[in-house]
């Protein structure tokens, strides 16, 4: 559902990340299907899946995955440029301002704190207005304070953009803030 937030929880090795990779079409399953935005993911070839991802899916990773050779602004511009948007820079500036980094657009990732890096990653994820946002342990590399700030921002932007959020975490209080919780154990949904 648009605006819905689903938490996937489970112990290490329970298959959370694998599920996320399957949802995004990053990995292929031995059986089963994933329907995203009306398209059956695994009926598409690798490039068509990538194209669909570019249009409909945003990502936030535990390790941020910002490109070290690009500034904050350029990191946010990247998906916009890949989508062929002419207003990439303006749109990126706008959304960076939304995450409170208007003053740090020309900083490189290594000059940003962990919290700031994850906010750049949030800006990058929301830049293309995805229908589905996949977040893999988004606070896993952050201290409590920075983590809380990032989560607050994540939920706020999710609400405003009406994105479907799928959040992988083993942080129980964080999971409780979601509308639905899926529990995994040994690769199976247990609740």
């Amino acid at each position, binding site marked *: 559902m648009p605006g819905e937030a689903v938490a996937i929880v489970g112990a290490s090795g329970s298959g959370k990340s694998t599920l996320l990779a399957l949802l995004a079409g990053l990995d292929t399953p031995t059986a089963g299907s994933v329907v995203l935005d009306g398209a059956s993911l695994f009926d598409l070839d690798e490039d068509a899946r*990538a194209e669909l991802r570019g249009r409909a*899916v945003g990502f936030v990773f535990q390790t941020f995955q910002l490109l*070290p050779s690009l500034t904050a602004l350029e990191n946010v511009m*990247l998906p916009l440029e890949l989508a062929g948007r002419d207003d990439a820079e303006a749109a990126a500036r706008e959304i960076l301002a939304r995450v409170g980094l208007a003053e740090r657009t020309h900083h490189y990732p290594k000059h940003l704190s962990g919290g700031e890096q994850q906010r750049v990653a949030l800006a990058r994820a929301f830049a293309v207005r995805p229908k589905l946002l996949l977040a893999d342990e988004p606070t896993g590399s952050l201290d409590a304070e920075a983590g809380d700030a990032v989560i607050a921002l994540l939920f706020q932007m999710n609400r405003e953009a009406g994105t479907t959020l799928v959040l992988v975490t083993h942080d129980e209080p964080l999971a409780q803030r979601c509308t639905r919780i899926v529990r995994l154990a040994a690769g199976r949904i247990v609740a």
Partner: protein
Amino acid sequence: MRQAVRMLARDWRAGEVRVLAAALVVAVASITSVAFFADRVSRALVRDAHQLLGADLVLVSDHPWQREMADEIARRGLQRAEAVNFISMARAGESSTLAGVKAVSPNYPLRGRLRIAPAPNAPDGPAQQGPARGTVWLEERLVTALGVPMGASLKLGTAEFKVAAVLTLEPERGTNFFNIAPRLVMHQDDVPATGLVQTGSRVWFYLYAAGEPAAVAAFDAWARERLERGQRVDNLESGRPEVRASIDRAQRFLGLTALLAAILAGVAIALGTRRYVERHLDGCAVMRCFGATQRQLLSLYAAEFLLLGLVACALGCAIGYVAQNAIGAALGTMLRAALPPASPLPALQGILVGVVLLLGFALPPLVQLKNVPAVRVIRREAGAPSTSALAVYAAGVAALGGLLVWQAGDAKLGLTVIGGFGAAVLVFAAVAWAALRLVSAAPVARRLGARSLALRYGLANLRRHARGNAVQVASLALGLTAVLLLTFTRNDLVDAWRRSAPPDAPNRFLLGVQPEQVAEVRRFFAARGIAAPELNPMVRGRLVTVNGKPVTEADYGEERAKRLVEREFNLSYAERPPAHNQVVAGRWFAPDARELSVEEGIAATLGWKLGDELAFAVGGQRFDARVTSLRKLRWDSMKINFFVIAPSALLADFPASFVSAFRAEAGQEAALNELIKRFPNLTLVDVGAAVKQAQGVIDQLINAVQFVFLFALGAGLLVLYSALVATEDERRREAAVMRVYGASRAQVTGSQRAEFLAMGLVAGILATLGAALIGQLLARRVFELDLPPSPELWIAGPLAGVALLSLNAWLSARKVLSASPALTLRDSV
């Protein structure tokens, strides 16, 4: 495309592509500088082709032409001109110098014109015919050397001439592209009066023919069938083969040096791209996540690199163009023809090389980027690029091989160079791998390791990284070899060459003493208190048979052997072996036997053995004798040496002249001038002056080659640099992990230092071995010198390796320690 431009700008700013660009610029600049220069020289040759020969057909002989040959030219209705060339002393007042004399018939040349000027630096014009009898035309260099104004008189042998004009241009000047003795032109009929063409003089006889192409071709065919040994026919197609050959050789040498730079640059590009790919794997995975298709990624990176390539190639061409001017300037007076401006073609050649390097060495690893699975963003271990370098670079190596063969203009030479280079890389890598494992496992290392944790880790790393380190050490050794070769070995070679003459060596050669003058010349020396020089008889003879089998050039593969057989030998006779000769095999001949003593080197070159029966033709007569001893000579003694010595009884009746080498001390110049005045037919060569002249020419050549070497040096340094940064990221990560687990700074730096030190030592020793080996090969094969082992090289080579890697260890340790381990690790996850 816009995206590619942006990405290039970002990568440039982040320093990701600078080494790649630099390597490309160096490669292209190096190739184009030589190509531009070669283009100008060959355009000059083409431009002058019609008058290069001075005729449609030129017949050259080292003995006078048979009358029928000259008559046949006239009989067939062709125009005919004649010339005689020889080297002699020209004297004016108190000064004398060697001149390249050309005595011509009045109608010379048949094609093109001699150009002369009334005075040095005055405007010149075409001469209607050759010099009038009793006059000579001098090249400006000769006017300066002798200090003779126009109208002054000049002595050549026993004749006196009036200097009538400055010679500014002669056909066949191609011959003089790299000529040492300046030209003097005179009338053919004045030659007898000089008394210079006598027994033992080295004289070339020329016949020129011109006319209807069909008649010329018919005569060409007719003449070729009647050529004797030592005679040849040049036409426009064969185009002065010896000129072309020497220029071709020079260009090929420059071209191969340029390609060495290109190969090294290729290695730097391969290393640089590999690092680039490793650093962009995550970025690609992220972009795949954000919807980039494989095609999009591939075209993005291909466009970025293409753009980089074009910019770098353009810059390289510009630098190459500037450098070729410098090559021309360095050759200076050696290039006697004004070169036409270069065509744009060489730029294309340079760009082609750049593109091949880029496509061959950068594209294959780049293609791996598109295959990076997007899931790498979640699971890092996914999608590491294939490390099978051999398969990845096969295309690059093949393309480069093609280029080399093309540049060398000769498949064998090209393949030899590629094979040599490839073998060097493999041997370096294999030896490095083995050596690093050996070092890390050596008992002494284990004992040391037991005492120090840092050392233990460093040495363990050597083993763990054996493959990567071996590649790095091999690249380092390669770069270092180039650097050592261009610094130490080059100087050693030049020194060896300079040292090859001992200080008390003779400094004058006296040539052309006739038998009846021997006693008189000896008396002349004695009367002036100069130690009487030893006068050695010299008989010129051609080798006709070996063990009864007729000898032809075609019997020999080696260039030197062909040359030796083609020319006349200087034979001598004596009763005892010369003092500076040593019989190393067989026994010295009996005084009345038909026996010979030959020099061991020439025996090896021509395949002569003790007991072989050799026959020589001297003039119209011939003699044969058996080889009974091999002699070892000291060529660098500057004494007169003979390949073949026979008993006097065998040779004394043949026409001979006498030659001598002696040492003249300062203050004896006046006596020597008097000697030349008294015996005008003698040629006195001042070795010092001749060596100086030759040295000048060689210095100019070295200067020109140095420009090209500079590029190779730059490329070698780039290889060094890219090999060093190739593993920097990984080392930083490892150091960070060590620190996280409580290693002290000293332990981290210590372990890195130990690892780098061992690698530097191995690389340094390998490079030293490589440079020493190549140096010896060059010395023996090319320069025919003995190159003593250089202690400096053996100290500097390994030290340079250790120093370079220590510096690197220090720098990388600083980087690792200045960043917090957490940051380093976070960057790298």
